[in-house]
């Protein structure tokens, strides 16, 4: 009763820099990554850690975020971002990337009046969607203001202890 046949399909793990890892025959002994046959094993140890065993070396591995087909994983503490694509969705992505208007600037505004408790980013910092950029105190609560996009901070308009009104400009993020 498979709706979408997985095992036979080749999957592509795609990085934001468009590095492709073509992965075939997962869950089998003849795993291939980029056409090379590899032996990677995955374990959960008794302490609750997950690690990969590859060429007799242990790699601490963790999935820190997943949303649909988008993954952020840690290998030995360094994060890597991937989207998991099928050959078709990869073609689609390539097509859409060509269509994409470049260098759009996204603004983050105050969702409500309040006081800036902390500005967590500086111009030039890379941020990910959902990453906290500003802590705003309003209604006696501290609210995390998160980045709506992946991008780079262009400009920060507010500082700690500033009092802001609704829709005041917080920062600009270039995608």
């Amino acid at each position, binding site marked *: 009763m498979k709706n979408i046949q997985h095992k036979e399909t080749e999957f592509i793990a795609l990085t934001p820099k468009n590095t492709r890892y073509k992965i075939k025959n997962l869950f089998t002994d003849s795993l291939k990554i980029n056409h090379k046959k590899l032996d990677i094993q995955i374990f959960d140890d008794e302490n609750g850690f997950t690690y990969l065993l590859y060429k007799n070396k242990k790699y601490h591995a963790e999935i820190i975020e997943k949303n*649909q087909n988008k993954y952020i994983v840690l290998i030995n503490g360094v994060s890597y971002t991937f989207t998991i694509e099928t050959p078709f*969705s990869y073609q689609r*992505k390539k*097509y859409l990337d060509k269509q994409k208007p470049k260098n759009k600037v996204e603004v983050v505004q105050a969702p409500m009046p309040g006081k800036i408790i902390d500005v967590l980013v500086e111009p030039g910092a890379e941020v990910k969607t959902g990453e906290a950029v500003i802590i705003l105190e309003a*209604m006696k*609560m501290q*609210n*995390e203001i998160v980045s709506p996009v992946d991008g780079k901070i262009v400009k920060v308009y507010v500082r700690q202890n500033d009092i802001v009104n609704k829709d005041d400009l917080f920062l600009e993020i270039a995608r």
Partner: protein
Amino acid sequence: MDINGKLYRKFLERNAAYEQQNGKDAAKKQHSKGKLTARERIELLFDAGTFDEIDAFTRTAPAESNFGKVVTAYGDGVIIGHGKIKGRTAFIYSQDFNVMGGSLGSVHASKIAKIQDMALKMGAPIIGIIDSGGARIQEGVASLAGYAGIFRRNVFSSGVIPQISVIMGPAAGGAVYSPSITDFVFMTNKTSHMFVTGPNVVKEVLNEDVSFDELGGAEVHMKKSGVANFVYEDEENTLRGVIKLLSYLPSNNMENPPAIEACDTNIEPAPQMLEIVPDDPNKPYDIKEVIRLLVDKDTFFEYAENYAQNIVVGFGRLKGRTIGIIANQPKVLAGTLDINSSTKAARFIRFCDSFNIPILTLEDVPGFLPGIDQEHNGIIRHGAKLLYAYADATVPKVTVILRKSYGGAYCVMNSKNLGGDFNFAWPTAEIAVMGPEGAVSILYRKELIESEDPAKLKKELAKRYREEIANPYVADEKGFIDEVIDPAVTRRKIIYAFEALENKHVTSPSRKHGNIPL
């Protein structure tokens, strides 16, 4: 039968022609735009080999005059049929952009109407995959009439069978109203658009430049308008989402929602619960962490994730059984109720109630969002929708108050007297007419003015207020709370509560329908 005879040959020829129409060239055209074909989408959605098409060979209605191109293709731009999704019957129509841009002519419309009628008669979900240029201009009023017929069927089916719209291309003009009546709208990011008037019209009338995506892309409808309830990055994942959603839903309003066999039966206490919710009422936390601990492992399926994030809404399972979850999100806007969150939750409650899905409410709400903006846009009217939806729902309703529960928001969020079946509270709950600071300023106004150290006095009074009034024990002793519970055992409590409520039935007064404050 003579398989070399004329009749059979005609049969084969027709099939071959249809095959070619749906063949490689058609696929190439769609694929080059990052889209799958109408047929491929169906194949991905249904269990392998279970889909059967009907009315494949219908012909386009002859045009009144020689206006526009004449098309000889079969099917009039839509594929209809039925099949099984995870073993359960579902009906579908899938518009074919390759045939006259998927535009809706009279034949096209009557095919959709036909499948809608069948789904309603059979009590099975209907899925519409929309990829259409809109009404077929050549056919004029006939195509408009077609839309109206579809809308009427949408409304008649509402609350009887689940209706799901999957937008995978343009949906413009009248075409958008069918999805908006259906229960759930899926969109595929970047390649689907919905708007009543397109960018060209906006440009002509208002002289504003706006792109398709900015005007009616999936992101806009997910984050700003709330029209799209589920958005995925590609079509394959979108269709996986539809399959997943259906697994939570009954086929019609007479059935109970399906259960899953291999379910999570663990009811052990979860001490982590105590760590997630901070004692300090002014500190935010992520309510989704609480939800994930309460429901069966990996079964929380969020609805309208990026719209009105101050309320979290979605499906989950308790020992395999579907429930609907409504939860305030202290992480966003302090978890206050505003216009968007009220309407989002209200619509979801209406769906659950229609389809016998019990409702779990997790409450941590400081009140309604204050502000001119909110008042002028009618928070009174919109907040009332949420209240109405809760009170009107007859499915089992369980509430857990985790922390704050103040004022009108207490009443609205499925309080005991609004019709909650079981109302639990954690020891950290603060139930009162308003927060300590506000209450103290009103009650001790004079004392505070006269005091030498008003800040200190205020603090002391606030402390007393918490101890004497704003706690769950007062409500418990008065019966507005059924039980104050240990947060660690919340999962067990709600599972047993819903089991006890399994056969709940309420007889409502007979009427045509209530007058919900729309």
